[in-house]
């Protein structure tokens, strides 16, 4: 009986049409990426006037980005480094703090745990943008405007990350932890050698979303960072395009640089990502 149900919908004409349709839609969804990559490889005058896959292919747009950086005061390579530095620091910090505090919230009984949990939930409801202006005041008072710290410190811990990890860690049987404790495992060992490997998917989700969110963050660095030398790529690219918008080729090359790390990361970790997604949706 069960087998039949599973097989029947696959063999109908309808399901074939749906499959083909879905493939077409998937291509449509990928089109902006494809267009971006192709445009970044063509000389600007040809971009609007040649078919997608025709025209001269060249690396000159990328060359332009890296060479004329000094001349137009747009150090793309440096900003790429800045983006990686900021994003990796934040991601590592969020993953580690979320793992430890998440473990505490899930598996350690301490006074006030329920209240902390309530606070985390409340904090997740308040949209971050409300605090943008007063956070700017704080950063000004700390004397951190135009520093990396302005973009790193306020997001080094994440209530969401703690919440996600705690939810996942709760599902890990206590027996494992007890066994580890009997082996005199330290807290660090329990978290790193037991909880994290057992909940790889959720750790990956927290890491990926933190990475993407930080890499993609635009409004905050736009507010606190006016120094091109410490600017993340997102802001540098935006300002470059505001000033040289008609130069479509280099702008698209810059967009590829900005989008590529995220896409690569996504493709590499796609398995964990899909697993984690279905976990987080439960």
């Amino acid at each position, binding site marked *: 009986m069960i087998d039949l149900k599973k097989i029947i*919908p*696959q063999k109908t004409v309808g*399901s074939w049409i*749906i*499959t083909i349709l879905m493939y077409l*839609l*998937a291509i449509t*969804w*990928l089109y902006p*990426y494809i*267009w*971006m990559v192709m*445009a970044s490889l063509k000389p600007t005058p040809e971009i*609007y006037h040649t078919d*997608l896959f025709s025209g001269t292919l060249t690396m000159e747009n990328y060359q332009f980005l890296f060479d004329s950086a000094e001349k137009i005061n747009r150090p793309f390579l440096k900003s790429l480094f800045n983006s990686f530095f900021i994003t990796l620091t934040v991601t590592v910090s969020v993953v580690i703090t979320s793992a430890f*505090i998440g*473990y*505490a919230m899930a598996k*350690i009984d*301490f*006074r*006030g745990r329920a209240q902390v949990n309530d*606070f985390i939930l409340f*904090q997740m*409801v308040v*949209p971050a*943008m*409300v*605090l*943008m*202006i*007063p*956070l*700017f*005041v*704080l950063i*000004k008072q700390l004397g951190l405007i135009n520093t990396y710290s302005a973009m790193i410190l*306020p997001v080094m*811990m994440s*209530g969401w990350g703690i919440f996600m990890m705690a939810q996942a860690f709760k599902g890990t049987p206590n027996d494992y932890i007890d066994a580890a404790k009997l082996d005199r495992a330290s*807290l660090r060992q329990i978290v790193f050698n037991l909880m994290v490997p057992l909940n790889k998917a959720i750790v990956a989700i927290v890491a*990926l979303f933190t990475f993407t969110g930080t890499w*993609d963050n*635009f*409004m905050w660095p*736009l*507010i606190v960072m006016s120094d091109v030398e410490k600017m993340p790529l997102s*802001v540098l*690219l*935006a300002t470059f395009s505001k000033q040289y918008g008609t130069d479509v080729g280099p702008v698209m090359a*810059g*967009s590829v640089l*900005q*989008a590529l790390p*995220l*896409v690569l990361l*996504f*493709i590499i970790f*796609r398995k964990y990502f*899909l697993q984690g997604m279905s976990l987080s949706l439960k």
Partner: protein
Amino acid sequence: MKIGNINIVEIKESQIGAALAISFLLFNVIFWAYPFLWLVILSVTEWRFFDVPTFSGLKNFFAVLYDPEFWRSLWNVIRFLGYYVPIVLACSLGFAFGLQHIGRGKVFIALSFLVAHISSGVAYSLVFEKIFSSTGPLNTFLADWFGFTIPWLSSPNMAMLSISLVVTWKFVGYYGLILYSGLVAIPQEIYDAAKLDNTKLLTKLFKVTLPMINAQLVMVLVFAITVAFGIFTEPYMITGGGPMESTNMPLLVIYETAFNRLQPSRAALMAIIIAVVSYLVIKIMRKLLEKNVELV
């Protein structure tokens, strides 16, 4: 001996737990509670970056009240939702159903849609700005095949639709997966029962399927409303809030009020209003739509 040992470990552990929680709370005292305090202070004072805030009572309130641009931006949120919610719901439902019924390549298709979600706002905004431009590939295609073009970004009536299409592109994969997780959880028996009743497809959709994924639908709607109130990068990059302020969203107004008009206190008050309104909208939506579906 053994019991005593465990006891010691537990005391120690609960201290560690508390210490971890305290580190988190300390962090939030600095980067959350303190700004929160400042938010309240700013909203009733006049502060202009270099001076000490001076109490100004309701002055900010009246300034915001009589700021037509701010209220237009709130109206624009509603216009955005008017386009975005139907389009993104239809697309994500279609995506979820499609995903449920395809034979091969489920993972490839899910990933193709999700890769849009894992994308950089600045990058894809630039791409769509070019794709939607009056001489861009989309209009070239339309002109070649149908002999007309559409002023995607230059007409005040079209620009918001274009922005919502861009945001739809980004979120369909994610919302679709949420709905999909609801769809696969519906027990087959319920469909079988409907089949026995000879229910029409559309009736089945509205009477059986949608109510069964009510929780996921509400979740998607909450996300959609949050996006509508918090959108910044797309209008900032693609339209700059124009034409005719038709895509001028609250965050753009807040940003400009603080850093171009140099009125951060007013901007802080605007942020409070936006947060309260978005909270109320979500609350009302949940009240209206949320049902507790009981599996019979």
